[in-house]
């Protein structure tokens, strides 16, 4: 009897642990497959960039004579300084930097003013004006190119950085306001009420009280704007024809067009053009993720 009981107990526990093993094996297999798929996708997303890095360090003999997957035998780091000083890449790079910085600052300042006025102040047309800014997200910028080109030509702003910076700013205002909007709406009214009690003017309330509160979201909009401006192509390609004022995207494109067969040089220029963005991403990936998500889906 005793033995029977023990046997039954043993058997029961055995089956229980058996099913547990089976279940966990099955779900482990399932998770394994999922991880494998996610891993393959990750490789697909970054391997092309690694491949770009590889061929930026190769000689033409290696590119044309060997497998594209081979590692560079003697990494040609000299490709980088070579393209940097030849082909104006350094000039384009610094143009890109300062256009980006000026446009980002201008966009953030203008957008903050507008968002404050729309979300915190009382006036009749605020909904309509907000609508004008938000609809800007859906506008194809190509539809504005010919009139803009004509306008800038008459203002003598063709081949002038101002044409590019103004266009960047105008077309980035909608997405910037969209990101700021949620943040401003969440600021409690009491903060302004306290300011009014203390006899602050509206400028003081905005500049001294509300604006400092928005620093985290300003950082997010700044990084998103930076990425958009750094990568912009059409405006510069249309409004700028002199090498003096070209940015990296257009400059790189022309450079690659000229040096069709020098893969090492092409790879190095492309690497230089994407490196600042990759570094920014390594440092600020959370803000970028948050900003891209907030800037696209709201309202």
């Amino acid at each position, binding site marked *: 009897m005793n033995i029977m009981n023990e046997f039954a107990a043993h058997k029961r526990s055995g089956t229980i642990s058996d099913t547990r093993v089976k279940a966990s094996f099955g779900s482990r297999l399932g*998770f394994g497959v999922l*991880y494998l*798929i*996610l891993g393959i*996708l*990750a490789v697909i*997303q970054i391997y*092309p*960039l690694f*491949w*770009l890095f590889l061929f930026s360090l190769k000689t033409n003999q290696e590119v*044309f004579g060997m*497998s*594209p*997957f081979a590692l560079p035998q003697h990494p040609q780091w000299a490709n980088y300084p070579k393209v940097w000083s030849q082909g104006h890449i350094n000039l384009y790079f610094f143009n890109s930097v300062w256009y980006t910085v000026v446009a980002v600052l201008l966009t953030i300042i*203008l*957008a903050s*003013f507008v968002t*404050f*006025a729309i979300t915190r*102040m009382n*006036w009749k047309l605020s909904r309509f004006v907000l609508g004008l800014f938000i609809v*800007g997200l*859906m*506008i*194809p910028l*190509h*539809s*504005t*190119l*010919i*009139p803009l*080109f004509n*306008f800038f030509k008459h203002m003598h702003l063709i081949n002038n950085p101002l044409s590019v910076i*103004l266009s960047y700013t*105008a077309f980035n*205002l909608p997405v910037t306001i969209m990101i700021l909007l949620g943040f401003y709406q969440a600021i409690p009214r009491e903060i*302004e*009420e306290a300011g*009014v009690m203390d006899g602050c003017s*509206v400028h003081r*309330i905005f500049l001294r009280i509300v604006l400092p509160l928005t620093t985290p979201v300003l950082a997010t909009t700044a990084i998103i704007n930076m*990425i958009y401006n750094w*990568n912009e*192509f059409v405006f510069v390609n*249309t409004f700028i024809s002199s090498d003096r004022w070209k940015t990296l*995207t257009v400059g*790189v*494109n022309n450079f690659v067009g000229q040096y069709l067969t020098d*893969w090492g040089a*092409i790879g190095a220029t*492309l690497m230089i*053009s*994407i490196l600042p963005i*990759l570094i920014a991403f390594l440092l600020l*990936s959370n803000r970028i993720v948050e900003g*891209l*998500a907030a800037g*696209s*889906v709201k309202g």
Partner: protein
Amino acid sequence: MKAVMSNKSAIALYVLPALLLILIIIYIPLVLTGYYGMMDWKGFAPMKFIGLDNYNKLIHDSMFWKSTYHSVLLGICSTFSLLIYLAVSMVLASRIKGANLFRKIYLIPMLLSSVAIAQLWSKIYDPSNGMLNHLLTSIGIQNPPLWLSDPNIVLFAIFVPIVWQYAGFYIIIYYAALKNVSEEVIEAATIDGATPWQVASRIKLPLISPVFKVTIILALVGSLKYFDLIFVMTGGGPNHASEVMASYMYGEAFSKYNFGYGSAVGFALLLICLLMTWLIRKLTTSGEDVQY
């Protein structure tokens, strides 16, 4: 309080600079595009009013309709690829370790300029030294396609880097939306005996459907505006096989200097984008949005 916060001159000071800028750079040019479309305006000669001739020509221009067809085709393919992104996001949002790292890796191509992506993928597609055809021949495929010079597959070859570029963008949007679905609702359903599949299809998907609608608009209208990548990779070629609306407009205006006709194409592009946005809104707002 009220008096301070409805100070008219302060409102004007805050709003007018930005408002003037978008009026001058975006809205007035949009109206002017429609107006210039009524001009005979080639190169640097003065413009001459010709009424609706350009628009009439546009309606009968098979090249324009071909490029519109290509744009719409890319838009439809992009919309269907949203389902793949959604599936990946649902996997990532379900107790996957390292989900955060995965979605950041997926996002990296989105941060690169379309010019860099176009140049990189031109090299990947290179028939003799590129990565792709080398891979295909090494697994035994004889005569792999000449991706960018074959008019029958060039559009597909352009679509692949588009998917590559935007995957991470949509995945973070869906991931954020899925993470917003309240844990309590899911827990309650699980206790009531709902399978993971039922939780996904009956609870999570309906709850994120508003976000899904927005991404459909983004994908479709975004595709209609597609330009940089195609302009750099193929310039619309070979023989207009990858021409899209924006590249057709750009070519008419800034290569052929047909500013009048280019404006008409630009105006049509605007109308089609607005029409598409309105249409999708109309189609997807049947019934109330689900809330729990």
